[in-house]
């Protein structure tokens, strides 16, 4: 009986256990289902989020694409505009630059007789319209139109008619063509590039005149030998590569110093120019070597020789019965110049010139022949030196001080008649001193206060005609022969 009871009990217990197991399984399944539902919900929500984000992304991409299209359009517009600007830039075939000088001079002249004359408060302006055109890769053009006049007068100065002084000497308010030349470049990629410079040459304001104007080199030839306008042709050979030295150029030049041109030679309306049996044209030939000193930055060395053949006594005198070719002149030169020597703010230069005049014995009226008296055919040699320095104070070099000295001997003659300084001090047969203080206003403008003192030892400085004579109280025309010239000046110079 007990056994049965035990068996029944065991059966009941096992049924109960099974029932308990069923219950826990159910609840587990339910929980799992719950979780699955929750997960599904989450997945659905994520899907929904993703869809929203996808939509947003699509929208964003569309916006970007739209912006891109708009930007492309804008770039296209900018390109069109840039091309228009570029086209206009190409259309502007000539670039203009400005040079402008205002001068206040106070002169005192002392004559050999002892008489003194002062000209104070003398104002003048010089306007320079500098032109440049890049015609092509192998050709460019430079020009300069100049007006140089005293304040308050437009009288045409007689020297204005000298070809080399047009726009260089104070005169009326007319614009003169001071420079107009083409540079034609050949073999630029070869070891020996060549160029021709044809026209009215950059033969004025040459080294080392640039220091006083606080600009870079503005002319080709040593300022002690040549200064003024000149028509000619120059062949420049760039020897920098051949000689392995930068800034080395050999120049061969030809210029016409004087050409006879009178109406008697006209044919119909054609103004055919020079042809006269009595007066030959003055022709000038020259050879010039520019180079630099190795390992010295911003140095310039120039050695030159030129010959002026058939110098005409008075280029303004068309009277062929009086006017004459009076001989030839040889001009030798050597110069060295350092800009900002060794980064010391110091500029230094030294020029030497040697002239040999060969008079042919012919004279002009009673003035005499080439640096000689009528009938004299002996050679006349002269020498000149020009030394100078300029120093800039401080890092910005706002203030600069300059000193110059030049000396010319009895028969010194050069071609600086077109010099900007109206006393042509570098032609002096005697001694000239100049000191100045410069204030640099800005990159383009400066003011200069200076003093010049010129002591003339011999007559005829800068003149080809007539014998040079010692200046003293007994010299001919002592009352009109200047023995000493002083000038205190204030100059403003703008170069833009």
């Amino acid at each position, binding site marked *: 009986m007990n056994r049965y009871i035990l068996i029944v009990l065991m059966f009941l217990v096992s049924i109960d256990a099974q029932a308990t197991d069923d219950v826990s399984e159910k609840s587990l399944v339910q929980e799992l289902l719950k979780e699955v539902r929750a997960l599904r919900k989450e997945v659905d929500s994520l899907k929904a989020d993703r869809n929203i984000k996808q939509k947003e992304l699509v929208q964003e991409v569309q916006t970007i694409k739209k912006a891109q299209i708009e930007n492309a359009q804008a770039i296209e517009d900018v390109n069109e505009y840039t091309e228009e600007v570029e086209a206009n830039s190409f259309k502007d075939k000539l670039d203009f630059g400005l040079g402008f000088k205002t001068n206040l001079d106070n002169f005192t002249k002392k004559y050999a007789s002892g008489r003194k004359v002062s000209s104070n408060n003398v104002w003048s302006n010089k306007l320079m319209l500098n032109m440049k055109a890049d015609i092509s890769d192998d050709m460019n053009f430079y020009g300069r139109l100049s007006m140089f006049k005293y304040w308050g007068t437009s009288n045409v100065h007689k020297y204005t008619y000298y070809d080399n002084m047009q726009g260089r000497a104070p005169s009326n308010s007319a614009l003169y063509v001071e420079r107009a030349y083409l540079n034609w470049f050949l073999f630029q990629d070869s070891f020996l590039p060549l160029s021709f410079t044809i026209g009215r040459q950059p033969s004025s304001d040459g080294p080392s005149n640039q220091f006083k104007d606080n600009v870079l080199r503005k002319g080709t030839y040593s300022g002690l030998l040549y200064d003024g306008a000149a028509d000619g042709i120059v062949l*420049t050979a760039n020897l920098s590569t051949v000689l392995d030295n930068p800034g080395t150029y050999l120049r061969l030049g030809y210029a016409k110093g004087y050409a006879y041109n009178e109406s008697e030679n006209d044919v119909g309306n054609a103004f055919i120019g020079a042809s006269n049996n009595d007066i030959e044209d003055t022709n000038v030939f020259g050879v010039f070597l520019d180079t630099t000193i190795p390992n010295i*930055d911003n140095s310039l060395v120039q050695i030159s020789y030129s010959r002026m053949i058939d110098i005409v006594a008075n280029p303004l005198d068309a009277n062929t019965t009086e006017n004459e070719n009076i001989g030839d002149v040889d001009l030798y030169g050597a110069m060295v110049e350092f800009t900002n020597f060794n980064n010391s*703010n110091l500029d230094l230069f030294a020029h030497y010139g040697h002239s040999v005049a060969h008079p042919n014995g012919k004279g002009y009226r009673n003035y005499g022949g080439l640096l000689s008296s009528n009938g004299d055919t002996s050679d006349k040699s002269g020498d000149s030196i020009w030394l100078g320095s300029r120093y800039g104070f401080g890092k910005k070099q706002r203030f600069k001080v300059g000193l110059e000295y030049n000396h010319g001997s009895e028969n010194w003659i050069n071609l600086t008649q077109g010099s900007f300084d109206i006393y042509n001090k570098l032609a002096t047969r005697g001694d000239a001193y100049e000191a100045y203080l410069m204030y640099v206003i800005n990159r383009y403008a400066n003011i200069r206060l200076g003093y010049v003192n010129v002591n003339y030892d011999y007559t005829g400085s800068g003149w080809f005609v007539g014998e040079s004579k010692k200046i003293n109280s007994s010299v001919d025309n002592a009352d009109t022969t200047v023995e000493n010239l002083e000038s205190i000046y204030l100059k403003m110079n703008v170069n833009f």
Partner: protein
Amino acid sequence: MIKKTFLILTFIFYSNLYANEDAAKTMVHKLSLSAGSKAIKQWERIFSSIKKMKRYKIDTLNSGEKEILKEYLINHAIDSDQPTVAGI
């Protein structure tokens, strides 16, 4: 007197011996700049804006170097003063 003159001349010659030009050229090369590609005003504009200096990596230089570089770039800008000589 001679000694004083000598000292003054020595001072003048060696007061600014640092070759700014060479230093500037090195910087120009390093930063791949070309002075002649811009006008003076454009270089001035670049040096007056930190953002623009960053674009050309000029901001990596110290103020002394910047000054040397600026002077060089302006002196060699497309519209800077150039020598006028026949055949060049």
